[in-house]
């Protein structure tokens, strides 16, 4: 009730608008700022960012540690880490001061942020952090490393079920426990570096000083190794959880074209795109969303095509999301989109790597979310939602035919029931006389007005569609078909609805399945009912009113600074080679103008050089 009053109040009482500067997709000036700034490091940035920052931290910490430990350096140990305590020495000291130390540890553990050079402190911190032993799948394995005749205590922490045990045993534990005593021809005296360089033969090792980062790594399937006397932790990427393989996309099936779809693993998905775009300028920046879930996401763009302000805006929105948990890209889509009250989606969600790659080459930006097989691509226009991935793979006459059929199907799905109600109630003169007799004859015995008739059938169709999703196995689609047929036939036999209405509803339903974009299908399913009511209220005039209001609504919407009805409303300068209709692929020279990309030229005017050579002959 309070919400309703608030809505009425907002409608009638003027509220001063907030002074927010809405995002505008800026035009590119000369040059590629991102290229100039980053140079060659960009491609490796995502993998080595932390290592570089950690190295910097290492150096500052080393300097600090040098000052602290200079008084207690043992002979022959050139290390900035804490002095290595000989085997057996610790135990006596521990026995003597166990109680005092225990108190100190329990007091200090909560305040720890950096890795301690005392193994016991680190273990205590981890046990406290992971609420051990209550947390049953977190394991801490303590062991000893014997290196250069010294026995050093160490431990490894991992989450059972998230790691590949074989890799961990072979690449981490076995070398540390068994092989560490092999004579290694390395003069490195620094234990920390010695362990990293010689004792953990794993391809992805990170050296971390911050305990928070260690916990994040462990949470995401890495194992962390702590060594007594070393104030860093070593994390190894040993992810090995169960996951679905790369299969066919479920929602965007094509006859012609790749049959691979994304799965739930972030790195697999980025690899699927990189497999298609073998371009070093394709950037995959890592981000995380969600305070607790810290869901890893990847932001992809091609740095010398995508507009910098677009990339910055997407990053700004991603970094500005303040939630606890993020489970799926669908939630992220709702958090990123410009207008949540708009019926149509402003971001494309797709399962196909080829489609994402194609949109990246146009200058768009993609966001991949760990745990979701749907990748978000932005910005989008209304026309993009009508495109199917197959359009580029078939010859252009077939592609254009498919588009015409698709647009007709979409218009039917949206307007056909409303038009039927409008014609039967207000505009009888439009129907040819014979058809009019047929309709009247079929509707003679039906006790309901056409509006009620159509609502009954549309609702029944929606129920069947929704129920079909929930039924497992092969029964689901079968039930949908049979339910529709039987229900329709039974309804006609019972004189609840007229036969012509079954055709109307069937064509409407089939038309809605022809909508390539899943979300747009839902939008038009909702709007269809609005048009039914408008048609029943005011005939074609009401439908026109609805179309105008929908048009106004769509033209006032933007998707990441791009007008939603571009390139027709507003009219943009660029070519319309692949908007409503598709030109032959060798004629699609330029990228869409409304994206304000850095490099507008997709291909030279003569892209089929072989034809030019033939002409010269």
């Amino acid at each position: 009730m309070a919400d309703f009053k608030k809505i009425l109040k907002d409608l009638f009482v003027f509220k001063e608008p907030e002074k927010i500067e809405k995002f505008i997709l800026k035009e590119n000036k000369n040059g590629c700022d991102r290229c100039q700034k980053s140079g060659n490091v960009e491609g490796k940035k995502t993998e080595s960012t932390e290592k570089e920052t950690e190295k910097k931290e290492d150096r500052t910490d080393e300097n600090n540690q040098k000052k602290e430990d200079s008084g207690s350096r043992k002979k022959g140990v050139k290390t900035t880490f804490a002095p290595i305590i000989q085997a057996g020495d610790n135990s006596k000291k521990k026995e003597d001061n166990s109680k005092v130390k225990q108190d100190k540890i329990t007091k200090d553990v909560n305040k720890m942020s950096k890795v301690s050079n005392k193994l016991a402190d680190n273990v205590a911190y981890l046990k406290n952090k992971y609420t051990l032993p209550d947390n049953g799948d977190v394991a801490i394995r303590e062991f000893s490393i014997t290196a250069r005749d010294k026995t050093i205590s160490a431990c490894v922490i991992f989450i059972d079920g998230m790691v590949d045990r074989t890799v961990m045993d072979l690449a981490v534990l076995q070398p540390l426990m068994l092989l560490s005593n092999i004579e290694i021809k390395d003069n490195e005296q620094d234990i920390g570096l010695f362990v990293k360089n010689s004792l953990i033969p794993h391809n992805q090792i990170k050296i971390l000083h911050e305990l928070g980062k260690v916990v994040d790594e462990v949470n995401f399937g890495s194992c962390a190794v702590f060594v007594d006397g070393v104030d860093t932790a070593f994390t190894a990427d040993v992810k090995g959880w169960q996951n679905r393989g790369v299969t066919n996309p479920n929602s965007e099936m094509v006859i012609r074209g790749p049959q691979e779809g994304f799965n739930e693993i972030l790195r697999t998905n980025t690899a699927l795109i990189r497999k298609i775009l073998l371009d070093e300028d394709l950037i995959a920046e890592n981000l995380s969303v969600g305070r607790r879930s810290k869901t890893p996401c990847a932001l992809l763009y091609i740095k010398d095509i995508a507009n910098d302000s677009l990339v910055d805006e997407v990053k700004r929105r991603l970094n500005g999301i303040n939630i606890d948990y993020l489970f799926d890209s669908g939630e992220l889509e709702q958090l990123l989109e410009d207008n949540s009250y708009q019926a149509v989606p402003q971001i494309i969600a797709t399962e196909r790597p080829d489609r994402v790659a194609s949109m990246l080459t146009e200058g768009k930006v993609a966001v991949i979310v760990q745990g979701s097989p749907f990748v978000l691509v932005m910005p989008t226009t209304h026309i993009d939602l009508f495109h199917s991935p197959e359009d580029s793979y078939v010859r252009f006459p077939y592609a254009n035919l498919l588009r015409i059929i698709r647009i007709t199907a979409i218009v039917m799905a949206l307007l056909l029931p409303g038009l039927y109600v409008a014609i039967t109630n207000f505009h009888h003169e439009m129907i040819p006389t014979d058809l009019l007799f047929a309709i009247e004859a079929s509707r003679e015995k039906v006790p309901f007005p056409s509006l009620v008739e159509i609502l009954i059938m549309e609702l029944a169709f929606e129920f069947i569609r929704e129920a079909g999703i929930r039924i497992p196995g092969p029964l689901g689609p079968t039930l949908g078909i049979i339910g529709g047929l039987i229900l329709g036939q039974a309804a006609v036999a019972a004189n609840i609805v007229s036969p012509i209405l079954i055709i109307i509803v069937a064509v409407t339903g089939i038309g809605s399945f022809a909508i390539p974009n899943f979300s747009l299908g839902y939008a038009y399913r909702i709007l269809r009912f609005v048009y039914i009511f408008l048609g029943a209220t005011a005939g074609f005039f009401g439908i026109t009113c609805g179309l105008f209001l929908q048009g106004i609504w769509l033209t006032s919407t933007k998707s990441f600074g791009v007008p939603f009805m571009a390139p027709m409303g507003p009219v943009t300068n660029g070519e319309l080679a692949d908007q409503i209709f598709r030109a032959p692929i060798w004629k699609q020279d330029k990228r869409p103008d409304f994206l304000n990309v850095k490099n507008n030229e997709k291909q030279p005017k003569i892209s089929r050089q072989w034809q030019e050579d033939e002409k010269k002959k």
Partner: protein
Amino acid sequence: MDKVCFGKVEAIFIIMNAMSIQLFLGFTRRMAGSGGTAGWMIPIYTSIIALILFFFISKLYKSFEGKDIIDVAEIAGGSFGRILVGLIFIVDYIFILSIMLRIFGEDIKIFALSQSPLSFVIIFFIIVMVVASYTGVESIVRLNTLIMPVVIIGFLIVVIGNIKFYDATNLLPIFGDGAYKVFIKEIPRISIYSAFSFIFFLVPFIGKYKDFKSIGYWSLIFSSIVLTFGTIAYFLVVPYPTSTENFIPYLHMARYVNYGRFFQRIESIFVLMWTMSAFVYLSAGKFFLLYMIKKTFKLKYYRPLILPIAIIIFTLCFMPQSLMAAVTLEGEVVRRFAWIVTFIVPLVVLIVAKLVNRKREGEKSNEKV
């Protein structure tokens, strides 16, 4: 509002739509009544007069790039000038919009919703105008760019669909009711281009002077072509004096289209397209009215005025006693005298503003010396 801008094509289409919408109402009937069989000449020579007037206006406007007519009036006469000119345009727009709203509503009632009360029909227009005003001129202009090709196609279908009824003898005698009546007495019919006043409020959204000129010229030329062509097509189909009797001429022409069993009686589809055009015209008109009020009285926001102005227009549109009274007002008042507000007032304001500017520049140069 000031940061919104749109291109030439969009501006031309919005002005063209505003000037050409009357073709779907009683324009051709009025032309038949004014000039008989020579009524089709009226849009041509009035457009030439309008082009000449715009030539002078555009020359004077060169010094006021990016300023609308209210700003120019402020330069010319200070606050008094601004309010006076603003009020003239406000009254003009309220009057025209309320009459046109009444006519649109009555026409819809005639051929689509004969059983429904007039207020019910008009409320749809009001809702559309209110929603469009909230979204702003940008969305109205963009939507118009999408709608115009569809409306033009619909218009062409009606014109070409009636080709089998064309009879060139319907255009005889060539000068209709006489050259004096057609070319001299009907000069005030230049008011058929009264919607051209939109351009004076589009200037801040267009920006460049060069674009202002080309928009003005092209919109007048295209509108005159559409109006002339539409009038000729009607006269070719319906002979004089029957052409003065059809209340909504193009509706009748749409009814005449008959190709086979299925392509006939297409006036309902024609209504769809015609109504879209009407929605754009009314929405744009209302937006510019709000814009004018905001600029005239130096208000910070225009949105609080949307509902009150809508209610005022809704109330005023019921003031004419009947449809015939509204049509008479439109034909004999609006379409005879609106040219004064559209062409003469801006001309006078621009001349005065130019003189004031020159005087100020003279004083400045004297001070420097």
